[in-house]
Each structure stands twice: as C-alpha cells, then as structure tokens.
C-alpha cells in the first residue's frame, strides 16, 4: 500500500503532467493493483524480464487496445447512448463525429481511429463549395488536435481522389499539427497521380500521410479496414483486444544453439508463450470485464465482438538475425547480406506459421487467429530495432532497402512499416517519390512511409512529433502525451540519425510511475 501511495504522489506532484494526463496515470496505478490475467509462471517471468512485452496495457484489461468504430453505421443509425440522431448535413456530421470520438476507448485514452473521414463526410457535402468545406474542416482539424492530443490518433483518406481528401492535405500543410496521424489508402487503379502528388508534397511539410497499399491490405480483411495507431491495419467495426510483442533479441540471447535449433525450439516456445498471454488477456476482457456486453459501442452495433481479433507483434528481428549469423561464424548483417536476409525471411515465415496454427478465442475477425504485426517500437527499446526494420543508420540504398523488406510484407496482415529518408532536393521533383512508391508497391510493400531530412516533424517509430515540442518537453512538458515517448526514443534509439525515418506512441507512459 505504501508503494502505491508513493506512486500516486509522484503522479500528483509531477508538474510536467496536465490534469487529464495525471488522471490517466492514476487509473493505470489503480489497475495495477489487480492480479494479471491467468498465465503460467514462466510467462509472468518473461513479462517481467520484458522478453514478452504487453506494451503497458495494464494488469486488468477493461477496454480493447484498438477500437475501430464503424462510423458509417453510427452516422446512418444515430447513437442512442449519446442521444445523437443521424446527421442531415455537413455541420451535423462533424458535430456528431466530434462527440463520438471522445467516447471511444483505447489504451492511451484517445481513440486510435477516427474513420475514413473523406468517405464518411462526402455524403454530407451537398452543394457546399470547396472553400466552405475547407473552412469547416480546418476548425474540425483544430478540434481533433486540441481534444485528442495523442500522436496515435489516426485518420484515413482515399483511395478515391475527392474534394475532402484534398482539402485535408491542404489543411495539414497549413496547420502543421501532430494530430491526427494520417494514412492515404492508395490503389494505382483508383487513386489519381495528382492526389498521390498532393500527399507527397504534404509529407514534405508534415511527414504524413503514410501511404498504404490499399489493394494488398484490403484483401486481408473480410470487410472494411482502417490503418490506426502505428501502422496497425485492423477491421472496421472491430479491432484488436490486445497487442503483445515478443522481443526477438532477448530470446536470441537466451538461446544457446544455432539458427536451426533457434527456429525449431526457442522461437516456437516463446511464440506460444506470447500467444498464451494474448489468450489470457482477451478472455479477461471478454469474460471477466464483459466489455463487449456492456459498452454502448458494442450494444448499438458500432463495434461487434465478431469483428475483433488480437495482435501478435514482435521486434528486434535485425539483432536476432545478426546474432545468429555471428554464432555460425559469419559477420553477415540483415539489410546488407543476402544470407542474413534469407534467414530473416525464414524466421518471419516460421513465426507466421506458428501464429496461424494457434486457434484463439474471440478472434473471429481473423478466423480465430491473431493478426501478425511487425511492431514499430516504443521508447524503451534501446537495443532492439523496431519490428522487421533494418537498423537505423545501416539502411542500404533505397532499392536494396525495398528489395530486402518487400518480400516479407505480405505476411503482416496486422501491419508493418519501414521508413525511407529522402534528401531535400526531392522537393523540386516530387514525381520521383511517386515512382518509388509505385515501384515499392509493385514489389509487394504493404505500407510506405517517408520523411525528409531536417524536416520539422520527426517520426519516432510510428507517430510524429515536432522537433520544437521535443525541445519544449525536455524543458517544461508538452500538451501531447506522446512527446514524452518521443523524447525517450530520441534519447534511446538514435532515431534522429536514421538514414530513413518514422514516429512512436504513448502506451508506456503510465508504466513510468
């Protein structure tokens, strides 16, 4: 009890946290007084050792990690719980969504998915001029940034070229806000080159949107999908109960044999253990908390348990592969040497098989299996490279980089990201970016994210921060929950020096107290 009191006091007296942030951390401490869902002792130890990481989701999951409301359904049917009638015009639609956003749970307390916003709003445009839409959207965008101040809050546009998508890109360039994070769903057969060009020019200014390979991603889902948080692709009207990630570096440290025995022994053992944790947490949420029986989103059909699954993530592939290579007496590196790349592919394919072989409860959205996800890292990852990325600073030339990672992107129905860096000169020739994105998707990449060197916005692992916010945070705290995360990442992972780039998230903040 004394320990809890001290932790609470630490939060209460932390001048860098605002009121709402304090409340969030206090809730985390309260949750930590509960016993962890029922798992084997070995799994508990693995969690304690951070061999398996639950991304600070808390001891007693009382809301899903990722919720993707079916906003189209809500707009059409209204929401009884919030006493909202279906909107009849643009203003009402924006007002409706603004209210609903604030009610969507997540680990960070802020909704990770705000919908495919252009598609949602196009029905309400009526005879509004582009200028009127622009003015209304600009206020809406300010509302989103100020009320949902978390870089994991994510919104989608595309694949069709339309007035709202274009207005959003313009507003993004003007407002230069961290929130919302943004993905353009891109399909060369549907999306115009002009929209992709607008998107690329927007990346030059604010390091977003990310470009998702729409055709490839859509094929992995029964219904609609959304890209949320840090490159997680999940079903709309559902989501993921939990995301548990396996530290491949740490399990390689524990392993004492060669690559072959690693794959057949250690890897399999820890993948199963990770899946045990996923199963226990999902059951707790569904059976003990009865979230899906009680929350208004589920009761009103805006989400449905049938559209949920869980996510199996991992990180530190590069360190795992390089270490296994070393053990065979070979100084070969992932991203640089073909033999190392082949081993990486083999490990990923093996993991995918293990994940796909395990029947999990309450994972109907993916036919009873977890979504496989290359987790893009958090601030505490000091020795491990995010997901299946090539370590920061040792990325090869862009074609080799794409050719190394593209062959495994198809495995990741839960999402994967690699970040590419371009020199400022590309600003004069944005068509060059289009060529590379199209080429990358032809090679099988699922998601393309790029940054310009020396941009004001920095991607940490999956989310964005402004350079100035980082500086400010180090001095006096930031309005954005994710700035702490980013500051830690910058300190720990050298992300500022990457030859290619991307940003992170907020989940672990509470674990600090």
């Amino acid at each position: 009890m004394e320990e809890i009191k001290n932790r609470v006091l630490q939060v209460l007296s932390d001048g860098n946290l605002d009121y709402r942030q304090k409340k969030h951390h206090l809730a985390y401490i309260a949750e930590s007084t509960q016993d962890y869902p029922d798992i084997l002792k070995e799994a508990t130890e693995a969690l304690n050792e951070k061999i398996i990481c639950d991304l600070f989701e808390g001891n007693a999951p009382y809301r899903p990690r990722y919720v993707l409301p079916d906003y189209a359904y809500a707009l059409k049917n209204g929401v009884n719980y919030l006493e909202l009638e279906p909107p009849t015009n643009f203003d009402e639609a924006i007002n409706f969504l603004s209210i609903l956003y604030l009610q969507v749970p997540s680990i960070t307390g802020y909704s990770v998915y705000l919908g495919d916003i252009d598609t949602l709003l196009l029905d309400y445009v009526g005879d509004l001029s582009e200028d009127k839409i622009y003015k209304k959207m600009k206020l809406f965008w300010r509302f989103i940034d100020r009320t949902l101040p978390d870089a994991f809050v994510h919104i989608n546009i595309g694949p069709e070229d339309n007035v709202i998508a274009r207005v959003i890109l313009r507003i993004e360039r003007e407002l230069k806000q961290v929130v919302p994070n943004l993905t353009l769903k891109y399909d060369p057969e549907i999306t115009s080159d002009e929209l992709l060009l607008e998107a690329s020019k927007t990346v030059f200014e604010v390091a977003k949107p990310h470009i998702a390979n729409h055709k490839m991603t859509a094929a992995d889902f029964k219904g609609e999908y959304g890209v949320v948080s840090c490159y997680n692709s999940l079903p709309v009207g559902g989501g993921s109960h939990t995301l548990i990630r396996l530290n491949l570096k740490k399990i390689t440290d524990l392993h004492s044999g060669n690559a072959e025995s690693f794959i057949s022994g250690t890897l399999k053992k820890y993948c199963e253990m990770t899946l045990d944790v996923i199963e226990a947490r999902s059951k707790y949420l569904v059976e003990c908390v009865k979230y899906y029986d009680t929350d208004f989103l589920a009761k009103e059909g805006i989400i449905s348990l049938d559209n949920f699954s869980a996510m199996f993530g991992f990180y530190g592939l590069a360190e795992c592969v390089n270490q296994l290579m070393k053990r065979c007496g070979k100084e070969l590196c992932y991203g640089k040497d073909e033999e190392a790349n082949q081993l990486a592919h083999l490990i990923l394919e093996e993991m995918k098989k293990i994940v796909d072989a395990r029947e999990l409860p309450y994972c109907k959205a993916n036919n009873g299996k977890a979504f496989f996800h290359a987790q893009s890292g958090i601030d505490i990852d000091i020795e491990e490279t995010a997901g299946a990325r090539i370590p920061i600073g040792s990325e090869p030339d862009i074609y080799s980089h794409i050719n190394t990672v593209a062959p495994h992107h198809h495995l990741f129905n839960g999402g994967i990201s690699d970040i590419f860096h371009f020199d400022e000169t590309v600003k004069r020739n944005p068509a060059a970016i289009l060529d590379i994105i199209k080429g990358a998707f032809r090679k099988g990449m699922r998601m393309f994210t790029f940054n310009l060197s020396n941009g004001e916005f920095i991607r940490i692992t999956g989310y964005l921060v402004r350079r100035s916010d980082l500086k400010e945070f180090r001095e006096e705290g930031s309005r954005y929950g994710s700035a702490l995360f980013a500051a830690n990442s910058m300190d720990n992972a050298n992300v500022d020096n990457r030859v290619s780039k991307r940003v992170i998230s907020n989940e672990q903040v509470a674990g600090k107290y």
Partner: protein
Amino acid sequence: MSKLQANISGIIKSSVIDGPGNRMVIFFQECNLNCMYCHNSHTIGLCNLCGTCVDTCPTNSLKIDSENKRIIHNENTCTRCDECIKVCPENSSPFYKQMSVEDVICEILEVKDFISGITVSGGEVMLHAPFLSLLFQEIKSHSDLKHLSILIDSNGNIEQEKWNSLLPLIDGVMLDIKAYSAKTHKQITGYSNEKILKSIEYLNDKNKLKELRFVLTPDYNNDESELREIAKLMKSVSPNVGKTLIKMRNYGIRKEFSFLREASSEEMNFAKNIFVQADIDILVI
C-alpha cells in the same frame, strides 16, 4: 545485339535531379568542351595508358593491362582516395568501363519498376550518337522498358545531323548555354558556341528542347550585356522549355581553376532580375 560499346563513367540508379521523376542516369566518358568549373573533370578525357595513375596509387590498386589496352582496377584494395583522378594529365579516370547496349539494358531492367525514365549524360553524350541510337531503339522495343522516358543531357556542341536519328526516340534534351558571346564562351569552355546555338534553335523547332540552363560565372558571363543576350536567347525558345539559372559552385572543381568565385546573392539577384524583366519564368538553383 550489336557489339558496339561505349565508355561509361558511371551509372546512378536513382536520381531526382536529372529530369522529371525518379531516373536512372548513365554518364558517358569524354567531352568536347573543357569548362573551367567542370565538377566531373575526370570525365572529359580518355585514358591513353600513360600509367601516371598506376605509379601514384597509394594502395597499388591499379595495373596496366597492355594486352587489352586498359587499366585494371582492384576494387577490394582501392580506398577511393581519388589520387589517380587528381594526377591524370588527360582529365580522365581509371574507373570508366566499356559497356555494350546489352549491358546497359541489364542495368535498367534491374530498376525498371522504380523509375520514370533514363537520362543519358556525360561527358558529352552526343559523341556517342550511334550507341545512343541503338540503346534507345532497344528500350523502345523492349516490352518492359518501352514506357520509360528518355532524356539527353548535352552541351549541344554537336553537328545538327547527329540529332536527327535520335529525336524520334527521345522525350527531350536538357542543354546548357555557357555564354552568348563566342569570346566569353571560349574563355569558359575552351571552344566557341556556334554549334550550341544552332542546336538550341534546332531542338526548339523540333519541340525537343526540354530545359535550357545558364550557369552564372562571375567575372566571365555576368555583365549586363551578356545577361541580356542570354535572356533574349531564352525568350526566343518556347515558353514550355524550362529555364534555369544555376549558381556556379566552386566545390569539386580542378585546382587550377580555384580562382573562380561563386556569385554573391546580390549578383544572383541581379542576373535573376534581368530574366524576370524579360518576362522569363526562371528557376534559380
């Protein structure tokens, strides 16, 4: 395929500054101008096997292969200190390679999914017109490559008829004008500019002039009358031709020309204003 070969000084597989989109750029060895500010002066001359570089190489990575009349370069021991390039009396390099059209096509195929097109550059690429003709025909008849655009980056110092067979195969030519007055041109490049001015006119008439660039070199081509002549020339070509004013950078130029100085921002603005006054939409870089 033809046995015709060309001396290739380098290939850049991704360039965003050699025409629209992402492009593969193929650099040819040998030039028929000798610009004072040339940043790639080792691409001007051809190797005559004099052996100066072989004797200079600190890691003994170069050898003369007299039988095949070439320099053998050991990539494993070479540290790319570029001493060989600095001492070459011919403004050449031991690194360029003979490549066939087939070799170049293989290189393009490797990156075809990522590029809008190719740009051939130099040296002076038009010295290899027969090779280019074959290369371009091969690209245009290849099912995986025919969509690629083809740009030529040339100094224009070439007989008019050399362009003829190439024009139907290419999308355009990017060309520099170093000076309008023949005298100044000779000072900067060592040669007069009659052929270049004709090339500009001819390519513009044929609708194949893509870009016309002018490199501002203080104390040589930055006086008002010279600038007004250049502006007149730029105005005489189609408004669709991109026009660029480039600041000469003295980084990487040969020691003997280290006296060249970069234009101040006032000098750049002065030049820019002359073009703007002439109603020319000009990009300054």
